[in-house]
């Protein structure tokens, strides 16, 4: 593997788009306008299951400003087959088709789109559109239907999200015969919604001649393009999807959501530009993190060696798709255990399909696993960190293969040292500040490091600058900034000389932005494209001035001061302008697809690791929990930009605090609907809830994951926080709470 010089990588660069974001100049999907723009407002079902009998559109169409009301009765004829509604992240099953027919599958299902000349007219008309329904019996509480639990269907999605490995050894025997055992069957977390600050919006510009330019809130411009072309029977080249700025997504934009469908449908039918922005309440009418019930059993010898592990998760899914996530596989990757039984089952109920939400599966599964280890440590009268060191995995026991790299031990040691872990007195309720009980807790984190195929294009422009392009989005992760750093290094030029362009389906293919694989996937393609461009430029230099560059190779030339020169002999040079002239083109382009070698990658388990340490204060009388400080030590390979990387981890930690103590969508199962679809009652941490958060990146070298040696950071910051907080709450109060979020009333 070629190494590239890393002058720009490793720099704590501020976000390149920073000035645009702090001045309000950065434009998001629902902020593009057209002179003839129409506004669409979606109407949602008010029953969870049944059939639409009648929609009273006639009166509403007479209201001022109303242009059209689309329902299942008058929608255009669309793709015939189910699979044409599939996208890159669709679970096995039959994708939801907006306005398909009269059937209601879940509460809040979009049933009509009102289109008007103004936002207010559309909103008002939508609010008074009367619909008659024929109600049917429904059930939304999967914990009442556990008899229906079954193995998930397999499909394209389960390739990236493997189902649990087969049982190993003899769990029952090993568990029964072990001297120390921990067992619980009541680990549970409720429904969660992504709630990015920007609500989902699509502005479709009707360009005429069948062409559409679509500004969409998405994590994948090509994914949205594919969906629109397939569903509406358009040619790919006529559908351009742009997502310049994305106001957060956290998974909500991994699949095309119904505002995209509605906006495009209305634009095509009315032959005008149409914007559809969802309301905050409507942000609860598509995917969510599924509520999950978990059982765990762990046993060990007296010296702490784990002998048996059983982890079972039962998760909610919809009636129409089998959404899966990797929940129970982590335990045997993190800890070597000879006897394992790992199960994962689904219960379909009358809700919309769940959807990947930041750290899907990992943040769910590590909660019982890492809490059970804490309980085991207490049973053994052993320090929880020492128990993890005792069971440290030198290789991935579940697959019986080595890690591509793993510096988790350094995370444990450096984290414990900086946090002051060993200053704690192990006895619960033994530390306090005034009337507040103080607790320390820790947990381990892991997240798989994936690399997917992607393409990038590098160009020498006629101005003598470099331009690198990919269809990838930047959902706030810092993609623009780190890709510019990576491209600069791969070309061997300064940051000022290269511009990274992104967020446009016309640009070279990138997969949906998720799973912590963007730097790895798109970064590798950027490196490949930049190297291809250097080769091409050298070839042209040889054509221009054969004798001087005859023996030079790509790695021996520099691109500085507008010239291509020999690194060893800088005076042997040819100007970019001459290269352009010789090439006979206005620009010199090279593009390259990076396809990771599956055979090499299959030999290794590739994962980022973390260790989280948390201090909580719990008011002894009121039970109020406060995370006073938290530290996460992360081993994730090369850190391209320490500033944006730290923000990714800190942001993940806030999500972990939120999952542990705040957020939950609560369902009224008698009505089959969510009760708190707003930001006042769906609690996320506010500024006053967030205190001292610290991050350590331990050094980790990895030559296998990808040419950059970088593992991705979007998820690893979250996964360890919820169990570390639950463990700290136990240390503070002596109470084991197995449900998330932990509320003060559970401690009283």
């Amino acid at each position: 593997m070629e190494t590239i010089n890393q002058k720009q990588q490793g720099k704590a660069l501020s976000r390149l788009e920073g000035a645009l974001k702090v001045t309000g100049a950065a434009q998001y999907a629902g902020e593009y306008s057209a002179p003839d723009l129409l506004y669409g407002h979606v109407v949602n079902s008010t029953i969870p299951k049944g059939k639409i009998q009648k929609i009273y559109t006639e009166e509403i169409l007479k209201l001022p400003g109303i242009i059209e009301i689309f329902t299942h009765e008058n929608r255009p004829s669309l793709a015939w087959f189910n699979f044409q509604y599939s996208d890159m992240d669709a679970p096995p099953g039959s994708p939801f088709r907006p306005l398909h027919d009269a059937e209601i599958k879940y509460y809040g299902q979009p049933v009509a789109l009102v289109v008007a000349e103004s936002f207010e007219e559309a909103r008002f008309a939508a609010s008074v559109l009367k619909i008659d329904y024929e109600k049917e019996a429904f059930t939304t509480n999967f914990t009442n239907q556990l008899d229906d639990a079954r193995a998930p269907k397999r499909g394209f999605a389960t390739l990236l999200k493997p189902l649990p490995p087969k049982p190993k050894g003899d769990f029952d025997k090993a568990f029964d015969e072990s001297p120390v055992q921990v067992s619980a069957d009541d680990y549970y977390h409720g429904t969660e919604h992504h709630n990015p600050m920007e609500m989902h919006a699509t502005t479709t510009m009707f360009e005429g001649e069948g062409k559409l330019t679509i500004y969409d809130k998405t994590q994948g411009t090509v994914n949205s393009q594919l969906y629109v072309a397939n569903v509406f029977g358009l040619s790919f080249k006529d559908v351009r999807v742009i997502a310049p700025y994305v106001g957060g997504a956290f998974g909500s934009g991994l699949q095309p959501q119904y505002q995209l469908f509605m906006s495009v449908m209305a634009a095509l039918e009315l032959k005008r530009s149409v914007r559809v922005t969802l309301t905050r309440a409507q942000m609860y009418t598509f995917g969510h993190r599924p509520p999950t019930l978990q059982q765990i059993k762990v046993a060990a010898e007296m010296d702490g060696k784990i002998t048996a592990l059983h982890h079972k998760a039962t998760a909610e899914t919809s009636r129409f798709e089998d959404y899966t996530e990797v929940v129970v596989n982590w335990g045997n990757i993190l800890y070597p255990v000879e006897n394992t039984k790992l199960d994962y089952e689904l219960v379909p109920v009358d809700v919309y399909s769940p959807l990947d939400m930041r750290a899907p599966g990992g943040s769910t599964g590590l909660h019982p696993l890492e809490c059970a280890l804490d309980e085991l440590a207490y049973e053994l009268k052993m320090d929880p960190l020492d128990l993890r060191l005792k069971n440290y995995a030198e290789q991935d026991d579940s697959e019986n293969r080595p890690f591509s790299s793993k510096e988790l031990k350094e995370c444990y040691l450096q984290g414990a040292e900086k946090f002051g872990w060993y200053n704690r007195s192990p006895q619960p309720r033994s530390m306090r500040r005034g009337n507040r009980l103080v607790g320390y807790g820790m947990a381990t984190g892991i997240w798989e490091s994936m690399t997917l195929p992607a393409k990038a294009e590098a160009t020498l422009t006629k101005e003598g600058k470099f331009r690198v392009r990919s269809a990838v989005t930047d959902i706030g992760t810092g993609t623009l900034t780190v890709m510019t750093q990576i491209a600069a290094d791969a070309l061997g030029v300064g940051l000022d000389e290269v511009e990274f362009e992104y967020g446009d389906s016309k640009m070279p293919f990138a997969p949906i932005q998720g799973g912590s694989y963007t730097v790895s996937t798109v970064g590798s393609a950027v490196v490949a494209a930049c190297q291809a461009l250097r080769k091409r430029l050298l070839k042209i230099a040889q054509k221009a001035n054969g004798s001087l560059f005859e023996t030079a190779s790509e790695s021996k030339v520099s691109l500085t001061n507008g010239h291509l020169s020999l690194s060893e002999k800088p005076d042997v040079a040819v100007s970019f302008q001459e290269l352009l002239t010789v090439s006979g083109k206005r620009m010199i382009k090279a593009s390259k697809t990076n396809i990771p070698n599956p055979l090499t990658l299959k030999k290794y388990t590739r994962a980022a690791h973390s260790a989280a340490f948390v201090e909580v204060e719990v008011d002894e009388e009121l039970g109020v929990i406060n995370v006073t400080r938290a530290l996460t030590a992360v081993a994730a390979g090369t850190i391209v930009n320490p500033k944006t990387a730290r923000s990714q981890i800190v942001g993940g930690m806030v999500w972990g605090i939120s999952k542990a103590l705040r957020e939950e969508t609560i369902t009224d199962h008698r009505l089959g609907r969510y009760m708190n679809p707003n930001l006042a009652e769906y609690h996320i941490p506010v500024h006053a809830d967030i205190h001292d958060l610290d991050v350590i990146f331990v050094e980790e070298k990895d030559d296998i994951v990808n040419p950059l040696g970088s593992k991705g950071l979007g998820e690893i910051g979250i996964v360890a926080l919820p169990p570390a907080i639950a463990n700290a709450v136990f240390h503070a109060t002596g109470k084991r709470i197995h449900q998330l979020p932990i509320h003060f009333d559970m401690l009283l």
Partner: protein
Amino acid sequence: METTQLSRNTNTSKIDCIRTVTFTINGQSTQLQLPPWVSLLDALRHHLHLTGTKKGCDHGQCGACTVMCDGKRILSCLTLAVSKDQSSITTIEGIADNGELHPLQKAFIEYDAFQCGYCTPGQICSAVGMMQEGKAQNRAEVQELMSGNLCRCGANSQIIDAIMEVYIPETHE
């Protein structure tokens, strides 16, 4: 909804209720013809194309729409535009001074106080208002008085760091 009520609304013709609103937006006198039910937020975003002010909930729960009105921070989504006739409004587009970023804007970039950037205009306008109020005496009070502005990316610490870099609390002996 009953038909009788609907037809009453139908009869309320748009033309009858249009109001003229005059306000100063970022130092510029601006006049709009608006129905009375248009929020200040939608007037800014849809009618003036000042999309720097963000809509995150439309219910006064997230703070993304915060603007300055006559020197005070307000939630523009809970404010009807017609009620601000003759007022002076400053939005995020008017915080910088002739292209020179406000010290808070610089600090937000330096401290990486945003990721997706969607809550950022509201955070900055709210912080400007909070500083002018002058009530917060320390970091904890700044955190409290900024807690009406949500951030889903989890940039909370950096946002407060950036504000503390710029804010010098008045000391009351």
